[in-house]
């Protein structure tokens, strides 16, 4: 066991068997061969934390959470690189891109999943043969995204109106009600 300092998660205790080995690195981070998966149970998004650079962490999530019928066709050469002798050992993760100013518009890269041989802790980002899969598939439904978008523009409008809020408008509660669309509910 060793301890690793990370920018996002502070100091982590890492067992050797927790380490995911990417013999060829990850595109953009070819020199980073060892990563660990960090995050909280409550959050469907986990982070692949590089052990080569404490500041580098890639958000990932199960592609099935975006597309329940997700089934990546992986070329045999990639499976050989992962020393796969039983498909049951395979697990996939999709890299998630989260726009900081509009996180609800996060997208998942379904075309280039990170494939892990769970038993051997070997991993590789591959291009799957499913050309119907997008590199930027929206994670949240249109309705949920629209709801967050509306909330955000309301919040922005309230902030912009803040200086005049010292005088109580006669229709006090009205604008707030119009902004109170609950986030989780999908409207038809």
């Amino acid at each position, binding site marked *: 066991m060793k301890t690793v300092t990370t920018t996002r998660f502070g100091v982590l205790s890492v067992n050797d068997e927790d380490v995911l080995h990417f013999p060829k690195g990850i595109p953009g981070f070819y020199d980073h061969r060892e990563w660990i998966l960090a995050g909280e149970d409550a959050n469907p998004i986990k982070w692949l934390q590089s052990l080569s650079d404490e500041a580098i962490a890639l958000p990932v999530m199960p592609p099935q959470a975006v597309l329940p019928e997700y089934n990546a066709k992986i070329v*045999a050469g990639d499976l050989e690189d992962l020393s796969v002798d039983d498909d049951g050992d395979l697990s996939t993760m999709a*890299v998630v891109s*989260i726009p900081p100013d509009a*996180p609800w518009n996060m997208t998942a890269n379904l075309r280039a999943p990170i494939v892990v041989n769970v038993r051997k802790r070997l991993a590789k980002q*591959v291009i799957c043969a499913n050309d119907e899969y997008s590199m930027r598939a929206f994670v*949240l439904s249109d309705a949920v995204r629209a709801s967050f978008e509306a909330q955000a523009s309301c919040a922005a409008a309230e902030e912009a109106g803040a200086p005049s809020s010292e005088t109580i408008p006669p229709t006090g509660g009205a604008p707030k009600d119009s902004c109170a669309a609950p986030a989780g509910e999908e409207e038809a």
Partner: protein
Amino acid sequence: MLVLTRKVGEGLVIGEEIEITVIETRGDSVRLGINAPRSVGVWRRELWDQIREENLKAAAQSPKVALEKLFPRKDDEVAP
């Protein structure tokens, strides 16, 4: 980088199993035919460039909100 000149109809062989043939040239475009075993992935170069960019972008972004708030919570379903 190895640089070779080929005419239409000519090709080259990489290893024992990969064969590339120049099929047609038109303006600044070249059509290539590729014979490779199914175990080898053959992708347009831009695809890898795009993956690299997506990864770099994903690692650079640092959302200000707690992400779990964006997902419906499981206990919401049991709540009255």
